[in-house]
């Protein structure tokens, strides 16, 4: 990006929530749970991206965004399969480019091609197709709503399920007190290693930060990748009204760093000034209940805390 473009980007930045596009790009009425954090993230993203978007979707909760004969979108939608949305985006992107170059399709007919996929589809089954697409420099936006498990099938463990979380396939037992025994994959790191032009984490609790990142990405080319931590009342076990509180605690405890990767550098766009202890986040969710009851598992909590501290040590000034 040239300096002058950067300047104009700076000027047109969102500063307060009333700057957001007042149009809703996703109509209400969908079958998603009340209080779904991922939907809030996608809603804010679509406000920036607008209707000239083709969404290629992976199997997951968000497949229920369009159930025949209904769609909440003003733009286009293609349901694919669990590991199919990225290659579908490739096919659609290639086809649009071919039609514009070879068949005289008007540039006005062009669309932003976007993938919407859950963490299971992203961290696990779809990892290799996505790696390949980034490597091919596919011009697309990837929106991963990360609810840290296979949600649509009833909340089973995925490569994104965090250490110490209970899922339907990683229960906490005497022999396996932690539930999920491994830290979640560092998807940001994995994607970053591909050196994409743009990569960011976003939180539904930070609409301004989120909107500015999508705005920046919208005008770029190549793979632009987003991980949206998506508090999930149903799977995580908290009251739907607390979705934003949980999202905020994820940031304030430092568990979920809000950052972006541009021009080879990681920048934390929202830094918790003083990190809260992780248990402030954990104790409000049923999936971590076994870390506190019947007795406190200080060992596991300390391990989670330690992981967070170790992460931030790299960036402490």
């Amino acid at each position: 990006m040239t300096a002058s473009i950067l300047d104009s980007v700076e000027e047109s930045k969102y500063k307060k929530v009333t700057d957001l596009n007042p149009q809703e790009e996703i109509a209400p009425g969908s079958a998603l749970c009340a209080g779904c954090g991922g939907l809030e993230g996608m809603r804010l993203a679509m406000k920036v991206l607008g209707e000239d978007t083709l969404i290629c979707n992976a199997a997951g909760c968000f497949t229920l965004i369009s159930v025949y004969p209904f769609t909440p979108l003003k733009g286009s939608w293609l349901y694919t399969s669990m590991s199919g949305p990225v290659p579908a985006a490739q096919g659609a992107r290639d086809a649009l480019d071919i039609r514009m170059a070879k068949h005289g399709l008007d540039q006005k007919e062009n669309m932003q091609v976007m993938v919407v996929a859950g963490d299971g589809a992203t961290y696990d089954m779809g990892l290799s197709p996505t790696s390949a697409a980034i490597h091919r420099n596919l011009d697309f936006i990837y929106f991963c709503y990360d609810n840290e498990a296979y949600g649509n099938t009833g909340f089973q463990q995925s490569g994104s399920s965090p250490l110490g979380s209970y899922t339907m396939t990683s229960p906490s037992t005497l022999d396996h007190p932690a539930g999920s025994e491994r830290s979640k994959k560092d998807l940001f790191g994995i994607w970053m290693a591909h050196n994409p032009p743009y990569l960011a984490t976003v939180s539904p609790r930070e609409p301004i930060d989120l909107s500015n990142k999508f705005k920046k990405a919208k005008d770029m080319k190549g793979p632009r990748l987003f991980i949206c931590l998506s508090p999930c009342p149903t799977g995580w076990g908290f009251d739907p009204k607390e979705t934003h509180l949980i999202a905020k605690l994820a940031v304030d405890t430092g568990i979920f760093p809000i950052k972006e990767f541009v021009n080879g550098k990681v920048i934390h766009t929202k830094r918790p000034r003083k990190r809260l202890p992780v248990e402030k986040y954990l104790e409000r969710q049923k999936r971590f209940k076994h870390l506190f009851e019947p007795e406190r598992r200080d060992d596991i909590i300390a391990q989670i805390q330690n992981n967070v501290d170790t992460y931030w040590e790299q960036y402490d000034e």
Partner: protein
Amino acid sequence: MLRIRLHGRGGQGIKTASQILGTAAHLAGFQAQDFPLYGAERRGAPITAYARVSKNIVLERGAIAQPDILLIGDETLLSDPLASVTEGTESSTLIFINSRHPSPDLKKHYQLESLPVQLDISGLCQKYIQKPMILSTALAAVGVRLMGHIGLHHLLKAIRDELGQERLSADQLANNLKLAEEAFQKVPSFDLEFRKFDDGFSASHLVVLERRPPVDSVPVIFATGNMALRKTGNWRTHRPVIHYEECNGCAICYARCPEGDIRMDANEKPVIDYDHCKGCLICATECPKHAIEIIREVASWN
């Protein structure tokens, strides 16, 4: 056979209620079957569950079109035409409604063919387990009692069996058993007769489909944004109500509503779309001025 249909919302324990019913019947020596029907909807949307109790082998599967007993856990469903709660009922169908309204009022208000059985089991749930809308135990207890033929001890054993599989503490289990006992005692028993369907079968009217053009042969939707036709307002158990005199127009509620159900009007005041608001209550929680009140939906027709 006795056919029981249960209505509620995802997250209210309706499926577990049907399983307690099934297990209780099984323990009492009957042939039994239970099953839930999930739609595409996630938590909050209407769901239905079924139980069949028979002296002989159950040669039926799937949804129950004509129930002998209808157990309605969530009264708000009755005013939602899409939930089709009373479909397939006759004057002989025994209807139970979880409500604070007296039975004759319910009959009149919902235009039911017969007097329903009424009990405020949410109140009981609040008393024993402090969760007014976790209805599994209470609704099953009511069902067992209405039906008759099954003793309290079988009901309690079934609750222990079924809830034992969830992560409940000993105290919670004990409270559930007390809850079941009270609910069981508070409704009358009808000792229903086991019904036989003997009105024969008639052939279905099969049609020969005509071939339609390809575009009409795949799930394609051109009516963009038509999702709004689905009125998810019926999911709500609680209603957020804005007190405008306390609102400063900061638009936080608008920014935070995942459904996009709040818009800012010309005077920069938020307006809630109650046709679609699912009642997550995020707006009320997030409002910095505490200008949004939470009101329970159930008493909406007083």
